[in-house]
């Protein structure tokens, strides 16, 4: 039997106080006892009875809002088919869980605020959490030792008589509370003051005897300002005591002491009560007084103007509520507002009529558009909203599905051509066939967009993805399907390890893979487990290829295999350590590159890896390829054989210092080889070379921080004959650069910076220069001798290097000045062209003309310029 009065008092009235929010618990909302839930038709009949009661309440202004809200919610659930006991029970469980969580959060907040809370606050908070939450909230607060004050401490409304004088005298005496003057020592009482159940000082009620004793003590004091203040205080307090107002006076004094803290921003009970405790009030009472002060500060709302309330409802789109509320007002109030509301009502009615016509004409989307506009005007018209929801949006024009990445499927579609907003899409996955309804299959997801990703599609089967559009649950557009899509993911993390005669291959297969098969290149199967296989007795040096395929259940007992991944392995002999590794800056090399030269090991392939630090393995240590690849990065470049049978690889040179290690790899293992450190120091700049005879004088600009360079030089066309010299900055400065014995031919010179430290030596990028050659040095000297009083002059030509001697001439000039050029004098002797060898000087007599006067002799190459002869003549001019 539905008890309407009890229901109104226990359910509707709290809901009204809670801002017309219906109880979240549907059993409570529909006045159904959880112990006696009606079944079948009885359940529906009960709901109909309750609905009827709500409709009757719409005639009562006080219950209009809550009744309308309840009716609207009822219709919505009715349309969704949710007016069932099961749905109520599910909602109750969900609400209970949500409320429990919220209560916990609220309790935490309240605990942080202080140890006391007003009952009104609890009720208000509980109402926000839904009906029935107050009891739970109170229980939780009690558990946390939070006191709930059903009645706040009434605060004094005005300043009591002589209150200000009492405060002044108290401050003058430095007392915390004025009644402390009654204490025997006129100081701080040993126990806090209590007031709520009558004023008690030091646990004792205040008596006239206390005043007498206090006056006696005051009389015994010497006359001073303090004595006067004490006497005044005793007079004022005594008056209040006699009139029975002492409690009020003390309470006022306490509120004055705590008010400043209460008026502070973000004041809490804990913070305000601290002020009360500071002046001697009991801590519990201080919290209660603080709560009263803070609650008083919140104030009460002014009574509302009904017309303004209607205006507010109308502006918020609650047309029906505004319409009903204004009907309860006197006719002379809100005339203009009344007109506007009526106009809106007429507009909505016209829209609805037109929408019905559109539906009848078979244009539901046009009707939806009109109803959307009507709902915008009357948002609280649940009937209108319900009508709109019953209109399914048009289906999406097309849908596509694809598995680009191999392990998930992306479905996209062209948006529905709906004329209204609020359209959502639900994608349903089915096997073998498209979905016939929005719930026929696995719901992949729901979105407002036009793409959805199925991150865990089953592998092997043919999958269809069907897209349904909706404005509301239960009202779906026809489905549009995409597919079929079949996922056949490959095995992953394939790892191949080969030693001298066996190959081991491992991989990761998906858990839904039915099987994994492996076949050799010739198609013969290889026995394997789900995770790998090992094949023994293989031939070293031969390449073996394996096709690994994962099979998936395709339905109907069939298994479909993936395309497969190929693993290749070559059994190899155990690798040997790389004998040597060197950095060799060679002529013509790009300064930004590094040339690494090594001798190939007896077995294994060489892999060069660079890292900013040395490898942790000793030279010759054996390690796995995984360990090796974890060290640095591989220097990838084509290895070229060198004339001396070694191999060289030119790689880009990174900035800073690197360590390059040569690993020998093979048979699934690696052997750590030699390590060289290379520092990409800045190269020398402005390298200049000047030939001075058979020597070359070099100079360059030193980069900052470099104190050593390595100079290498080699004759042009003979790059294998490299000579080398190190030059320190000190000797470079002291000796004026560097002179190298370059010989007479053209040479190439490279200068590379060198960095030495505890790690060893690092050679930087070389800078090269070509120095053109000079002629072979041929020395000549004039020898004079007297033979039988006849002076004889000979020229002797020698060399330190075999050379073809061109024809030479001896030129004589008169006077003291030696000839610079042949044409400056007379040719007096000739040395025919011939082969000149070291230790075999050529001597020719010179017939000096007019030897009596001063003359000079010079030797020149006949008929050549400075550089065309291939020799450089060195000697002292003859003559006297």
């Amino acid at each position, binding site marked *: 039997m539905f008890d309407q009065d009890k229901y109104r008092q226990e359910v509707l009235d709290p809901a009204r106080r809670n801002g017309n929010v219906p109880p979240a618990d549907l059993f409570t909302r529909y006045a159904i006892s959880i112990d006696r839930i009606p079944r079948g038709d009885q359940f529906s009949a009960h709901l109909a009875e309750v609905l009827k009661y709500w409709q009757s309440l719409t005639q009562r202004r006080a219950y209009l809002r809550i009744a309308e809200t309840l009716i609207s919610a009822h219709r919505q659930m009715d349309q969704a088919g949710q007016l069932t006991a099961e749905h109520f029970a599910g909602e109750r469980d969900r609400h209970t869980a949500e409320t429990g969580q919220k209560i916990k959060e609220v309790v935490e907040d309240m605990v942080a605020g202080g140890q006391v809370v007003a009952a009104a606050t609890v009720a208000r908070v509980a109402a926000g959490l839904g009906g029935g939450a107050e009891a739970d909230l109170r229980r939780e607060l009690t558990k946390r030792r939070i006191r709930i004050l059903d009645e706040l401490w009434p605060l004094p409304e005005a300043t009591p008589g002589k209150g200000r004088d009492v405060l002044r005298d108290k401050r003058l005496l430095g007392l915390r509370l004025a009644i402390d003057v009654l204490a025997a020592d006129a100081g701080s009482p040993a126990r806090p003051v209590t007031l709520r159940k009558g004023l008690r000082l030091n646990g004792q009620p205040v008596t006239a005897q206390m005043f007498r004793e206090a006056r006696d003590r005051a009389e015994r004091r010497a006359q001073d300002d303090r004595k006067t203040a004490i006497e005044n205080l005793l007079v004022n307090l005594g008056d209040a005591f006699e009139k029975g107002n002492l409690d009020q006076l003390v309470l006022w004094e306490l509120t004055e002491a705590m008010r400043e803290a209460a008026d502070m921003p973000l004041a809490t009970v804990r913070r305000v009560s601290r002020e009360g405790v500071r002046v001697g009030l009991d801590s519990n009472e201080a919290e209660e007084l603080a709560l009263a002060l803070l609650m008083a500060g919140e104030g009460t709302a002014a009574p509302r103007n009904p017309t303004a309330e209607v205006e507010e409802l109308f502006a918020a789109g609650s047309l029906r509520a505004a319409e009903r509320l204004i009907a309860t007002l006197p006719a002379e109030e809100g005339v203009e507002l009344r007109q506007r509301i009526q106009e809106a009502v007429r507009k909505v009615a016209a829209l609805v009529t037109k929408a019905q016509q559109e539906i009848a004409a078979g244009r539901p989307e046009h009707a939806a558009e009109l109803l959307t506009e009507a709902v915008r005007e009357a948002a609280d018209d649940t009937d209108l909203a319900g009508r709109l929801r019953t209109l399914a949006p048009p289906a999406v024009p097309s849908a596509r599905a694809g598995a680009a990445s191999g392990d998930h499927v992306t479905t996209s579609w062209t948006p529905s051509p709906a004329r209204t907003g609020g359209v959502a899409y639900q994608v349903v996955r089915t096997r073998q066939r498209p979905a016939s309804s929005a719930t026929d299959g696995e719901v992949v997801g729901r979105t407002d967009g036009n793409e959805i990703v199925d991150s865990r599609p089953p592998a092997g089967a043919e999958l269809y993805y069907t897209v349904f559009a909706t404005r509301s649950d239960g009202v779906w557009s026809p489905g549009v399907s995409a597919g079929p899509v079949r996922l056949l993911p490959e095995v992953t993390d394939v790892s191949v390890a080969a030693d001298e005669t066996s190959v081991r291959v491992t991989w990761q297969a998906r858990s839904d893979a039915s099987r994994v098969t492996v076949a050799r290149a010739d198609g013969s199967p290889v026995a394997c487990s789900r995770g790998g296989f090992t094949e023994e007795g293989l031939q070293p040096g031969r390449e073996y290829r394996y096709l690994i395929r994962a099979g998936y259940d395709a339905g109907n007992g069939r298994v479909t295999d993936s395309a497969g991944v190929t693993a290749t392995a070559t059994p190899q002999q155990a690798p040997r350590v790389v004998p040597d590794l060197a950095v060799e800056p060679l002529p013509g090399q790009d300064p930004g590159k590094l040339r690494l030269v090594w001798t190939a090991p007896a077995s294994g392939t060489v892999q060069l890896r660079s890292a900013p630090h040395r490898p942790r393995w000793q030279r010759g240590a054996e390690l796995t390829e995984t360990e090796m690849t974890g060290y640095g990065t591989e220097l990838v470049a084509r290895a070229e054989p060198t004339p001396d049978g070694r191999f060289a690889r030119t790689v880009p040179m990174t900035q800073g210092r690197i360590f390059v290690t040569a690993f020998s790899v093979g048979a699934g293992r690696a052997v750590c080889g030699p390590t060289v450190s290379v520092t990409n120091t800045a190269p020398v700049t402005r390298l200049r070379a000047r030939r001075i005879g058979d020597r070359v004088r070099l100079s360059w600009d030193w980069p900052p921080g470099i104190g050593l360079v390595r100079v290498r030089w080699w004759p042009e066309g003979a790059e294998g004959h490299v000579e080398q010299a190190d030059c320190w900055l000190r000797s470079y400065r002291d000796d004026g650069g560097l002179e190298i014995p370059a010989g007479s031919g053209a040479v190439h010179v490279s200068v590379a910076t060198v960095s030495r430290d505890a790690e060893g030596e690092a050679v930087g990028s070389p800078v090269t220069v070509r120095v053109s050659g000079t002629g072979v040095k041929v020395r000549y000297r004039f020898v004079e001798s007297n033979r039988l009083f006849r002076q004889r002059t000979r020229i002797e030509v020698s060399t330190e290097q075999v050379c073809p001697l061109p024809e030479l001439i001896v030129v004589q000039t008169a006077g*003291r000045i*030696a000839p610079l050029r042949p044409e400056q004098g007379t040719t007096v002797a000739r040395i025919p062209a011939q082969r000149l060898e070291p230790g075999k000087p050529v001597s020719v007599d010179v017939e000096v003309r007019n030897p009596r006067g001063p003359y000079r002799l010079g030797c020149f190459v006949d008929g050549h310029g*400075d550089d065309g002869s291939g020799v450089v003549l060195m000697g002292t*001019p003859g003559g006297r």
Partner: protein
Amino acid sequence: MTRLTCPYCYGRFAEKEIKFRCGGLHPIEGKPCAPGPDPVRGQVLGDTKLQLPVVEGNGKRLSARCAKCRIETTIQICPNCHSQLPVHYSKINNRMVAMIGAKFSGKSVYMTVLMHELIHRVGRRFDAAVTGADERTRKDFSNEERDLYTEGVLPGATQTAAAERGRAPFVFRVSLGEHRRFRSTLRHTVLSFFDTAGEDLESDKGVAENVRYLSCADGIIVLLDPLTVPNVMEKFGLDPSVLPQAANRADSPINILTRVTEVLQKLPGNGPNKMIDIPVAVAFSKVDALWEGLPQDSPLRQPAPGTPYFDEGDGEAIHAHVQALLYDWEGGQIDQLLTKNYRTFRYFGLSALGAVPAVRSPGQARQKVGGAIQPHRVEDPFLWLLSRLKVVTTGKD
């Protein structure tokens, strides 16, 4: 009696005239001698710094006792300028090498580079120890060497003797040979270099102010800039920017040599019909600018000998070549002047820097070298003079 020459003021004095300076040590009784003004140093060198008292004594002895503090001192000073003499100055060879040259001929750079070469490369060649003979030389030379070799900046223009009365020469001590048990070949020579400002030689007055300096010299290096020889720039097709801007206005080598010759002719002992006996090394600097214009077999383009003696053959070849070049360049005026007035002279070609320095940009305080200091044959004139003075031996390859 052999008279000594002060390496600082070039005044002559007898050994016994050498004075001493108190060491300023604390005596057992009484107070130590306090520094005070030394009017002689102020008058001769323009040095007004306070000095410890001068102690009179017998210069032939190596020590004297201060009359005031009664402490013996071994600090010998010149009786003329009161400069502290190098240790055992009166007991070892001392040679004055004067260096003169026109403004912007590169004297200061040459002297710094020459001393650097003597200390390092040439020092190793001759197994010689070359050190500064006094604190000022060591300090100032180190500064100039650092500026040039480390900082890479050229020295500023040298102040004239008139403008800087206290400008003191660099004094170095060269130790050659080795100490043996029965026959030591160790010999020390004090070398005094006086860096003449270019302007000193561009007027008769300037030259006259250096008379004492030249008259005391045991050898003279005359540094000439071949680029200031008329027509050389055009003959070699050189870029005019290789010359310092002001060098264009510098006096020609023949004028400089003429003035020097006249000064030397006025020295006591010389007459109108007497040749000047002081050996003169006429060195043409900056041959690096002419490098490409010289034939490949030019002796100037050959490296200096590395022999531990002065190579006379190499020197003669250079001399004959430069002499011929002079005739080629300017018709032999210089050679004629030298031939007619000097009994011993020798031509040289050298480069102190090894390359033409970069042109000074407007904001630069001092001109930058612009590369390594790569001197070429800077030591040749000096070694030739030392060979003439019997400090180093002579040989012929």
